[in-house]
């Protein structure tokens, strides 16, 4: 055993490496990107792939699992919306090699569009999930998740949250990990081809597995109970357990939850023992709902003891337990600090020009360029999810809005803009697509796009793709004088049908980082 100071993300990466993964696949997204970054820089030579989007990342890992290899997939919570289709169906097919899906939820939305709770996805897909409370547990759970995955032949979901992902503490690591599985192809079309006749049987066998899932949860060392006071008990899961324990008086009974489906036998025993119960969990009141059916003595988010939205904190626990809590009043009227484009970034000039052109409507997308919504630009009317800029511009054009402008980044274009672009051409939709090409995924820390010419990769350029689609396009250099930018915008807007303008300026922050 050795020990290292690790964040939750790093601990998951090392857990996967020590569990003998052959491959790690991911699409970047805060707070989960650092899982794959850690594997990439681990010096272990573990293969890793930045897929074009989360769905493809999931399918890559499932393919590896089919060949009996262990695979890790990591993404942020909303990435699982994109990967939901293969994820859910893979609980029907099951897996061969262990398959673990690490998902980073973002309660309080420090860097996200929503704060959905990934535990629902595991429930929905009827598979096993685990929720670590600190980096040590993240490491151990990840290794155990691979064992459980192979035992159940199901993908296992690791639910992480921002504070776990970016919280750091010492972790005891094993000296040696497990070796890799043998590469083998065992074909079984009744499992792996989900035509209706097969799928019907697969759903039955998935339902039959549920008893085993419950049994594993019931016996898992990651769930534990301290029975003390009969008056009051706390049930807490994941990082919320750490927040609750911060205020533990040494007397209150505590049930710690780390695995799902919930260990209901254990919970019943705890509830029979204790009077009033406080449920402390991050995200939706999932545990609380299960308990509220058993007893009216349960307190949490449903009865207003805790707020329904935003992250759990030790502060909220203190208030719920009526402990002394009186922070100083905040200092008012401070100058705000808006995040904005880095000085010198080409985005500054493109958006300044676009604002002057003042199109009727600008549908936006997700990336650094989303910051154009703030002053001084205020040049973005919508931002919904990756790829939505083009899809929504199409809808606007279909109902008669004149030349909507869709603004989308290069990585986002490949991720989810491409299918909508195909529709734009096919339907001859009258839109302008402005691709903000900084030649990488900037917002999440500089990961490569499919156009990158990294060693051993074949660049798939925007020009190649657009030429293949047969759409009119041009390239804009945002560092040229503003009259030139304005003239180019006007010229493109006058052309009928779908047109694409690529504003190209390599990310300067990343260039600086690499120069260091």
């Amino acid at each position, binding site marked *: 055993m050795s020990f290292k*100071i690790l964040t939750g993300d790093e601990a998951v990466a090392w857990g996967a490496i020590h569990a003998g993964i052959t491959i790690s696949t991911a699409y970047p997204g*805060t707070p989960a990107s650092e899982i794959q970054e850690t594997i990439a820089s681990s010096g272990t030579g573990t293969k890793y792939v930045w897929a074009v989007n989360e769905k493809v990342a999931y399918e890559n890992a499932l393919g590896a699992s089919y060949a009996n290899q262990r695979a890790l997939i990591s993404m942020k919570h909303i990435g699982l919306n994109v990967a939901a289709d293969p994820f859910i169906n893979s609980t029907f097919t099951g897996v061969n090699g262990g398959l673990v899906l690490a998902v980073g939820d973002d309660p309080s939305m*420090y*860097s996200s569009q929503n704060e959905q709770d990934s535990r629902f996805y595991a429930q929905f897909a009827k598979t096993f999930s685990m929720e670590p409370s*600190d980096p040590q547990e993240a490491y151990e759970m990840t290794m155990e998740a691979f064992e459980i995955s192979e035992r159940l032949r199901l993908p296992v979901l690791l639910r992480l949250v*921002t*504070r776990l992902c*970016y*919280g*750091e*503490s*010492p972790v005891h690591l094993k000296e040696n990990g497990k070796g890799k599985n043998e590469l083998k192809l065992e074909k079984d079309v009744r499992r792996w081809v989900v035509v209706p006749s097969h799928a019907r049987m697969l759903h039955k066998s998935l339902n039959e597995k549920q008893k085993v899932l419950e049994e594993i949860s019931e016996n898992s060392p990651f769930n534990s109970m301290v029975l003390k006071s009969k008056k009051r008990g706390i049930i807490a899961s994941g*990082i919320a357990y*750490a*927040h609750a*324990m*911060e205020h*533990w008086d040494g007397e209150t009974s505590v049930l710690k939850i780390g695995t799902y489906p919930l260990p209901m036998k254990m919970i019943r025993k705890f509830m029979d023992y204790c009077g009033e119960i406080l449920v402390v969990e991050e995200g939706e009141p999932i545990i609380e709902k299960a308990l509220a059916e058993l007893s009216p003595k349960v307190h949490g988010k449903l009865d207003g003891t805790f707020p329904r939205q935003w992250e759990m*904190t*030790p*502060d909220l626990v*203190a208030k719920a337990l009526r402990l002394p*809590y*009186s*922070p*100083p*009043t*905040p*200092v008012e009227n*401070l*100058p*705000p*600090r*808006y*995040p*904005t*484009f*880095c000085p010198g970034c080409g985005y500054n000039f493109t958006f300044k020009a676009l604002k002057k052109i003042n199109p009727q409507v600008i549908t936006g997308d997700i990336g*650094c360029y989303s*910051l154009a919504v703030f002053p*001084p630009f205020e040049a973005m009317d919508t931002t919904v999810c990756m790829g939505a800029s083009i899809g929504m511009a199409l809808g606007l054009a279909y109902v008669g809005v004149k030349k909507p402008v869709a603004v989308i980044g290069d990585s986002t274009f490949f991720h989810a803009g491409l299918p909508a672009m195909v529709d734009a051409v096919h339907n001859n939709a009258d839109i302008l697509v402005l691709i903000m090409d900084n030649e990488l995924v900037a917002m999440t820390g500089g990961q490569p796009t499919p156009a990158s010419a990294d060693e051993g990769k074949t660049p798939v350029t925007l020009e190649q793709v657009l030429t293949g689609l047969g759409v009119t396009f041009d390239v804009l250099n945002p560092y040229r004088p503003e009259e030139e930018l304005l003239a180019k915008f006007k010229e493109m807007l006058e052309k009928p049908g779908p047109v694409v303008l690529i504003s190209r300026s390599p990310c300067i*922050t990343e260039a600086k980082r690499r120069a260091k």
Partner: protein
Amino acid sequence: MKKIDVVIAGVGGQGNLLLAKLITLTALAEGWAVKRSEIKGLAQRGGSVLSQVRIGEKIWSPLIELGSADFLLGLEPVEALRNYQFLGPQGKAIVSSNFAPNPIKFSEEEILEKARSLNFLLIPALDLAKKAGSPQSANIVILGAVSHFLPFALSTYEKVLKENLKRLQEENLKAFALGREEIQKLA
């Protein structure tokens, strides 16, 4: 139970995360339990960055409660004021009086006045870092300043600094010494 909770406020590019890491490593080297966490959302794009370091015999939550921090370290006065709520009744705020660029216009004198009224210990961290020969080392100046109050040996800081800062070692040690010297004039 003994504990030391440190909140570090600043903006992207000021070395907030490094400062938190150096405090963490120093505390660990002295045998304490430590948890560190950070929120750096849009740090690279000039946004606020907040680190929390919790030091004690046993630490559960990585988060510091409002009204309970023992130290509020500010790499920038506005960001320090923005996080004033963290400070506990006996807590000390050690804050740079040098402002980070912000396109929003405001009166710097009013901000500093507010900081003084809340008993912030203000030191010109950036000016001192420049004097030490490394303008990026304002974070190390603040480390030197807080070292005056933390229960760790000087030799431990020195060892941690040498092991973790490969470049500009001389300048950083100087920045540390200047911060420590400056705070003694105020405290």
